[in-house]
């Protein structure tokens, strides 16, 4: 560094600061996120000040109200035209308020609300020492199997912190798909991830497995975040800005004001390509695309099942939203570079998810691989790079998230002495003993498999149609083949449930409270409605399919 440069740094800092504009914040347009963050903070205060006995009720109440209010705010914004004609960039360029944002935020909030119901379920486990218990550890800090754990169980402790943690994660997810600069994107990524790491560790049963899953998730998540951050740094180095719009302009080569430093870096495509690939990789990690998928089965299996359901649904929605915005707003000029790569990722993801799922013996791991395959299907829609692509992905995400939460909610019901009976062999003959539960689960499996008259079919059809119109016919062919492979293991579970002899000491189906019943009912209703009459929602997604720049 030359002496002149040092001097200039020095003198610039010494200049009198004449005026700093107060940041202009559009509170109304940010209200969904602000409501959720506020409620999460209230939740923390509840933990500190409300007596232990009332905390559960206070937390559930606050969470439900907050999520409903936030959803109402999203609807109000959409009704005001922020999704279409009045789409804009708020908060000094940090947040985009447009169609995809609002659609995904609405989906995340509804999914979170349904997920919250499964969090709050307290009737599945038998009461311990006269206290109703939920799926979460009595006291997170106590060592599994220790005396302090036993004491905590006996005292009837419950980890009501899960509710503010859920809300914090939701807040991050709301910002993630609407982030309009790379730093906001990263902050949102961390805000949504950290509570999830914690939540994964909180299972009441099989606590060691749960903690192992959390640690793995945390380590690998941190690893992925490092890549993302490095990619962000490279992109900043390339474009001299973290703002999506500015980076896009630099990528396209039409910069309003060219300063010498920028002129120096903007020709350096290696910075751009490596940076973009690394940021994309961080997002692919979150959606569970191959080869960044390996955490998925372990974490899905170890995490408390309500957390798995919530995470599988809402995280995927948020991460795909962020990926869409990144690829469509920041990197459209780089389309010809990232499309072939994403092709490969989508193909590998679909095939690996479908093929490895065949030999799974645990229902939660099976659903984890299924979620990997679905990530591949959604990527096929992302690659379309058209408005139809965006809307089909939006629709798919909405359809998929409710099926997922519903399916995991059903998993929480099937129990034996050791808690949830997740080994597939225990599900044999379930349809004979509990026809209703088995039938509901069969509906979800058929939706996963994409059988007509379920939301899965409408979603898959939309995604593949968009991909085919975008010229990705081979991708669609492989997608259909993967669907066929995937149908095998979904149908196998149905066959197992309905056409196998029940085992003598098989699991029982617990009778849930209205909370889980609602979650499953909403799942079935959405699955059937989106399957039978998808057009209204496809139109809605299509209206919401334009990103603001």
């Amino acid at each position, binding site marked *: 560094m030359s002496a002149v440069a040092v001097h200039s740094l020095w003198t610039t800092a010494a200049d009198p600061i004449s005026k700093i504009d107060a940041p202009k914040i559009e509170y109304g347009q940010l209200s969904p996120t602000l409501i959720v963050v506020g409620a999460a903070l209230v939740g923390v205060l509840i933990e500190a000040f409300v007596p232990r006995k009332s905390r559960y009720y206070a937390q559930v109440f606050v969470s439900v109200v907050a999520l409903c209010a936030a959803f109402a705010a999203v609807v109000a914004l959409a009704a005001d035209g922020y999704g279409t004609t009045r789409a804009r960039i708020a908060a000094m360029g940090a947040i985009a308020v447009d169609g995809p944002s609002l659609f995904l935020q609405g989906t995340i909030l509804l999914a979170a609300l349904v997920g919250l119901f499964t969090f709050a379920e307290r009737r599945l486990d038998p009461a311990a020492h006269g206290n109703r218990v939920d799926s979460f550890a009595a006291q997170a800090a106590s060592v599994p199997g220790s005396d302090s754990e036993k004491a905590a169980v006996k005292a009837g402790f419950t980890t009501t912190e899960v509710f503010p943690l859920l809300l914090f994660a939701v807040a991050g997810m709301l910002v993630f798909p609407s982030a309009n600069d790379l730093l906001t994107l990263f902050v949102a990524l961390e805000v949504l991830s950290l509570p999830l790491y914690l939540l994964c560790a909180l299972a009441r049963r099989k606590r060691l497995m749960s903690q192992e899953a959390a*640690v*793995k998730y945390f*380590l*690998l998540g941190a*690893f*992925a975040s490092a*890549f993302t951050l490095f990619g962000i740094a490279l992109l900043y180095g390339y474009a001299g800005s973290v703002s999506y719009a500015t980076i896009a302009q630099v990528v396209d080569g039409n910069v309003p004001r060219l300063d010498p430093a920028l002129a120096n870096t903007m020709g350096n*495509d*290696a910075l751009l*390509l*490596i940076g*973009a*690939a*690394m940021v*994309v*990789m961080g997002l*692919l*990690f979150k959606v569970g695309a*191959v*080869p*960044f998928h*390996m*955490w998925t*089965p*372990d974490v899905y299996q170890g995490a408390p099942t309500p957390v798995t359901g919530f995470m599988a649904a809402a995280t995927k929605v948020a991460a795909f939203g962020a990926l869409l915005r990144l690829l469509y707003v920041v990197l459209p000029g780089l389309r*010809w*570079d*990232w499309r*072939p*790569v994403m092709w*490969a*990722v989508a193909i590998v993801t679909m095939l*690996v998810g479908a*093929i*490895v*799922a*065949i*030999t*799974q013996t645990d229902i939660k791991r099976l659903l984890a691989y299924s979620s990997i395959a679905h990530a591949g299907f959604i990527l096929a829609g992302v690659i379309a790079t058209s408005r139809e692509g965006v809307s089909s992905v939006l629709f798919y995400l909405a359809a998929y998230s409710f099926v997922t939460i519903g399916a995991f909610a059903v998993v929480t019901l099937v129990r034996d002495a050791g808690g949830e009976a997740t080994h597939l062999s225990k599900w044999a003959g379930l349809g004979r003993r509990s026809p209703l539960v088995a039938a509901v689960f069969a509906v979800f499996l058929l939706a996963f498999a994409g059988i007509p008259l379920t939301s899965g079919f409408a979603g898959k059809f939309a995604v593949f149609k968009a991909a085919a119109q975008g010229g990705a016919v081979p991708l669609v062919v492989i997608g259909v083949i993967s669907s066929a*492979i995937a149908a*095998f293991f979904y149908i196998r579970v149905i066959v197992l449930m309905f056409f196998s002899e029940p085992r003598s000491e098989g699991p029982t189906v617990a009778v849930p409270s209205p909370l889980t019943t609602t979650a499953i009912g909403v799942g079935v209703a959405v699955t059937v409605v989106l399957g039978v009459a998808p057009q209204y929602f496809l139109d809605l997604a299509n209206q919401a399919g334009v990103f603001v720049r």
Partner: protein
Amino acid sequence: MENLIALLIAAPLLGAAVLLVGGRRLDAVGHWIGTALAAASFVIGLVLFADLLGRSADQRTLTQHLFSWIPVAGFQADATFRLDQLSMTFVLLITGVGSLIHLYSVGYMEHDERRRRFFGYLNLFLAAMLLLVLADNYLLLYFGWEGVGLASYLLIGFWQHKPAAATAAKKAFLVNRVGDMGLAIAVMLMFATFGTFAFGPVFSHVGDASEGRLTAIALMLLLAACGKSAQVPLQSWLGDAMEGPTPVSALIHAATMVTAGVYLIVRSAAVFNGAPGAQLVVTVVGAVTLLFGAIVGCAKDDIKKALAGSTMSQIGYMVLAAGLGPIGYVFAIMHLVTHGFFKAGLFLGAGSVMHGMNDEVDMRKYGGLRKYMPVTFITFGLGYLAIIGFPGLSGFFSKDRIIEAAFAKGGTEGWILGGAALLGAAITAFYMTRVMLMTFFGEKRWQPDENGTEPHPHESPGVMTIPMIVLAVGSVFGGAFFSIGDRFLHWLEPVTGHSEGNSPLSAWTVTAATMVCLVIGVAAAWAQYGRKPVPVVAPRGSLLTRAARRDLLQDDFNHVVLVRGGEHLTRSLVYLDHTLVDGVVNGTAASVGGLSGRMRRLQNGFARSYAVSMFGGAALLVAATLLMRAV
């Protein structure tokens, strides 16, 4: 007035719904509800008929648009009805004869505990047939066509406890499916050619289509007609269908079902006129069938099966006439109507005989019944005279005109077709006289059955004889009424068109020849069955007789060619499926499963391995992105 058209169908449809949904509480009155609604439909038909008569000839086409049935871009199917002279004729025949058969069934099915259901099916049959003849497009017609198939299946197999009835119903249904396929293909071809299947547009654009295309459509329509109208080669279901209750036979043979094929051809006149090749095939099918049915009719000892052969033969006449084009269309329909009268009368008479004879159908065990059943004898006898074409009665006028038209086709074809029709007339006279003699004349031949109870032949109740009387009146006067002053010709001509053709023979020559044939047939029958007593056990008979008893080996033919052939085909397909297809499928499944097992091992549970995989993936991602820029 147009708004009444839908009511024609709605009345029997309502009856079917009420009777089939209503359940046991309607058992006591169900048959009267069914009859009343059939009659109501007939009355509506009469009102509409009066209205049509009040209009000038070119104003006699009414249409009623009910609703858009299947509105898709470029594919427009409406629930629209068309009432013109042709469909009006059918409406009156279907509802009129149908109502009489309803009334008759009240008596005939009196002791059947499922009578309400029977009337429900009868009403359904009428509704489907009315939909068929009132439809204004081929798709709606197809709907009615399938409805007729369904109703006939239900009715033929009505006595489902009899295995023979169940089998017969299945057979009728399956054979009809072959024809239905023809109609389906014809409708699709029509849509592909004209972009629509509404009658008006199709007929007015016939000129735009190539003759080859028209021939294909016409042949497919003919296939459909063969199925429903029991024409060779799809005739085999008709005889077995006699397993149904006798009123059903009357309904199928006189008013509904078998007439549908003739209707289809005449309705599609424009298409057939544009495809002379197909028309020739139609006439050949008609001629072959009329002889086939007549020969089968000569050999049957079962009274209903003899009448069934006769129906096949008479429909053959109609198809022959329809195939002649504008020369024959009007006479095809005229014969259809007169046939409706006398065939319904004959069947109801046969049912009356069976009713009095403990359901015996073997004519060799009848004999001399004229003394016991005078009303049945007289009405059956009038129907008999009508069908053989006794001068002055219905059949005389209508059949005679068909034979004339066949000669008028001209050329060698005309001679062959006319000759076949004449020959058919002689055979008709023979087998009908045989039925008449074996049933009502000679000595009584019935014996006590194995339980020792001897039948006590008696006249049927009024509710059964009244319809027979009404039909007999129609059989006697219908033809003369239609023919004198060419009333029927002028009525129908605006729809079907008409031309005289140029017959090499004068009308009187043809009539005289027909009369000679008639006399020969009757005389031959008298020589064999009138002069000498009829043996109770059938003699062995000639080769032809034995073949005719087996329906000219139609089932053997079907068995050898279709069943065996089909079995071979399916066996070889199954073999292919087991070895080739299953081999590929199982092999694929096994290899995918193996791959899955191997890939599963990569998931070893160690976070460090996962991190390495991520690192490798990231490296690949970056490298691939850079590579994409490089190439």
